[in-house]
């Protein structure tokens, strides 16, 4: 029999005004097993906690019930109180008589009666409580960063800086991500490559950082502190340890009409290629879909010209297995496909381009060497129309994205401004719904585009673009402020396409058991208070995989994710949640029902020898719960047909006792 103490809190007048606290403590004092019952103004205050501590000592209490506010508020407080008085902290139960009683009822008699019943339910439960001890699991002191864009790079650098090992897995041949394709960055207009490439080099040179480029995560097993990951290093057909990145092979390769992904297909590359001059690692890669040697064994020119002997046509994909304590997702974004928005004639005219394509056209390392030229005829455009919100803020069925893509207002202002700065002979129009420029120096930047550079901002949308054979694009839009339909003969139209999470994100989320929203952005553990953690322990979020972000926000979040990882890796052991499932091996018949419903893969099976009648033994298959992995949801306890599986802290008998106490009146 437990010796139970009951502590009824007044919460000032929050509880005491509608619940007769004295009557509650009096009534609960008569419950079986209760040896002490009292009430006090503020149980959570130091004086209140001392009442509890003294009672535990003086009455040798084995369990306590606090009738107070929600356990979400002060359960942790009272558990600590109990622990400091030598009582196991899981021998504490809270009866929520504030949020779920005094605050929602006006009638004092009714509220008091309900408070007593809630107290009784808690007493009934605590009778069946058993001391629980949180287990511990070790931490592998290495982090995995999935995605090598600016988010992944920054996270990796910060983690490495704290002295921990980091691996970056990047599916492209080089790290750098989208930022490598961008020309200038708002609002300061410094060149993206100038600020990014030093960081890429830092990654390559940091001995704590290991880059798996041209690689993908294939499998993730394990749990926080102990992840086992399989990484597929795709065959480059070039020995990365020998290749010097001289580029000789890429010039000699006869297959030179392959659309260049780095320039979004605006120009061509060879079958063997290095994406761009500052690539990290600077190693050539053979495109197996384009290479004649790999397709039909005819050519081999690159191997002939390579003085380092790095070409290896026989190279195979390689699986690397690594252990990690924490995983950071930094899979980034892509602009959406514009197929559903062909009223803008994207598929009809080469001169209708996406904003990212426009970045390449204005980039010094791009297909035009940085001179603004129309893709169709290479002529200098004089009239440019920018269309914002193409596919963003679109809630129409089956089309576009319902969210604001966040970065388009600012990069469009940047594009418009740069056009006018470099080519004063251009007329630049921007069709906008709203200009969203919250951010340091952002609105000022946009205003400069209008006031100093004379960009024409038109409030309204474009409804149709009609390409004409003389190269003009007839843009029909609405000017809502003038209440007019406007018609502009443009030379180029630039579409600010909505951005969406990378396609690799969803299968990755499944591997990580990390949750995603309906748009395939990773969900954070708490929208405000835990913005860089996934609800799955040990998984952290960095950059646009969690939601649209510009570079400053991405870098800030990357650093925040790194600091969370560092906090985790700094620990030698992790304390586990002790309220885990537990299987009674005498009752378990090894049917696998529990394993199938477990979202964490915490349940496995072992063959165990059992004593049987007449001194015989038998081997039976029984379930075993890995307490470090179990999160305590209880799905298995209900799935178990034999009743072997139970949940500590929320056992069948405890919940039944609560049911009984509530129904008995």
């Amino acid at each position, binding site marked *: 029999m437990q010796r139970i103490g009951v502590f009824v809190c007044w919460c000032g007048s929050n509880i005491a005004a509608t619940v007769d606290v004295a009557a509650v403590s009096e009534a609960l004092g008569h419950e079986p097993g209760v040896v002490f019952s009292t009430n006090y103004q503020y149980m959570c205050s130091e004086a209140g906690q001392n009442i509890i501590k003294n009672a535990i000592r003086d009455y040798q209490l084995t369990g306590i019930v606090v009738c107070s506010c929600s356990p979400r508020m002060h359960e942790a407080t009272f558990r600590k109180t109990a622990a400091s008085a030598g009582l196991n902290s899981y021998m504490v139960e809270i009866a929520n008589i504030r949020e779920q009683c005094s605050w929602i009822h006006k009638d004092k008699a009714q509220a008091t009666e309900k408070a007593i019943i809630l107290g009784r339910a808690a007493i009934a439960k605590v009778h069946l409580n058993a001391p629980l001890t949180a287990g511990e699991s070790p931490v592998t002191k290495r982090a995995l960063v999935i995605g090598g864009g600016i988010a992944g790079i920054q996270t990796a650098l910060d983690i490495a800086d704290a002295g921990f090992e980091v691996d970056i897995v990047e599916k492209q041949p080089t790290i750098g991500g989208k930022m490598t394709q961008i020309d200038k960055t708002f609002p300061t207009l410094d060149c993206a490559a100038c600020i990014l490439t030093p960081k890429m080099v830092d990654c390559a040179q940091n001995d704590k950082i290991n880059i798996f480029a041209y690689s993908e995560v294939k499998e993730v097993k394990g749990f926080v502190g102990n992840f086992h990951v399989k990484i597929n290093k795709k065959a480059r057909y070039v020995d990365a340890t020998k290749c010097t990145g001289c580029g000789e092979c890429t010039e000699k390769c006869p297959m030179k009409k392959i659309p260049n992904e780095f320039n979004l297909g605006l120009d061509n590359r060879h079958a063997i290629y290095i994406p761009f001059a500052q690539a990290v690692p600077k190693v050539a890669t053979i495109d197996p879909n384009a290479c004649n040697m790999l397709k039909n064994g005819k050519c081999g020119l690159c191997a002939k010209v390579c003085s380092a002997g790095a070409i290896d046509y026989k190279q195979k994909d390689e699986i690397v297995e690594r252990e990690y304590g924490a995983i950071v997702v930094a899979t980034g974004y892509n602009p959406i496909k514009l197929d559903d928005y062909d009223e803008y004639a994207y598929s009809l005219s080469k001169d209708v381009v996406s904003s990212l394509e426009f970045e390449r056209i204005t980039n010094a390392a791009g297909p035009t060497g940085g001179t603004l030229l129309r893709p169709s005829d290479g002529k200098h455009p004089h009239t440019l129309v920018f269309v914002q*919100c193409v596919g963003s803020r*679109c809630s129409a069925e089956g089309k576009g994205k319902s969210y604001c893509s966040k970065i388009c207002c600012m990069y469009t202002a940047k594009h418009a401004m740069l056009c006018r700065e470099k080519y004063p002979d251009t007329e630049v129009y921007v069709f906008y719904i709203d200009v969203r420029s919250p951010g340091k120096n952002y609105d000022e930047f946009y205003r400069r585009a209008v006031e100093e550079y004379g960009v024409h901002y038109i409030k*309204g*949308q474009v*409804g149709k673009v009609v390409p004409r054979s003389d190269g003009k694009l007839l843009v029909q839009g*609405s000017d809502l402020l003038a209440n007019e*339909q406007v018609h502009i003969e443009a030379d180029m139209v630039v579409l600010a396409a909505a951005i969406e999470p990378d396609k690799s994100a969803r299968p990755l989320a499944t591997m990580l058991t990390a949750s995603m929203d309906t748009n395939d952005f990773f969900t954070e553990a708490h929208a405000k208070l835990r913005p860089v953690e996934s609800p799955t322990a040990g998984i952290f979020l960095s950059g646009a995989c969690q939601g649209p972000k510009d570079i400053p926000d991405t870098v800030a979040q990357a650093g925040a994710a790194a600091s969370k990882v560092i906090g985790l890796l700094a620990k030698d052991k992790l304390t586990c949640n002790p309220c885990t499932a537990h299987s009674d091996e005498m009752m378990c018949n090894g049917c696998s029902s529990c394993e199938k419903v477990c979202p964490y893969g915490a349940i496995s099976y072992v063959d165990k020898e059992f004593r049987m009648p007449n001194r015989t033994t038998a081997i039976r298959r029984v379930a075993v719960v890995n307490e470090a992995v179990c999160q305590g949801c209880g799905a298995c306890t209900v799935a178990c047909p034999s009743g072997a599986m139970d949940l500590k802290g929320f056992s069948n008998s405890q919940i039944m006792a609560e049911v009984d106490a509530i129904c008995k009146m």
Partner: protein
Amino acid sequence: MSKYDREQILRTSGVNVLKCMRCGKCSATCPSYDEMEYHPHQFVYMVEKGEIEPLLQSKSLYKCLSCFACVERCPRGVEPAKLVEAVRLQVIRQQGMNHLKPDDIPALLDDDLPQQAIVTALRKYSK
């Protein structure tokens, strides 16, 4: 009267005018824009505000081509064309308010005019 009209129009059209985010794409895409005194986005906004009377009086009602361009391209699924039609129905359903009378038709015919043109005109402009 106006409040009743507004509710009737919303019911007939099934359009939720509150979904509009005022991007103006309906009016940007409307082929009859120049002929309309009130443009598609104004229909949405004026119905939202309950300013129905000017719409009921307006010739714009008969300029809509029912081509569904605004319906197709509206990013919010507002369907302005349905609203225009509902306002027009509000007018022509009243006694003696038919916009096109059968007697007027013979004068408008030519030898090649397909039947389709006549039936649609009657369907759209008369009850």
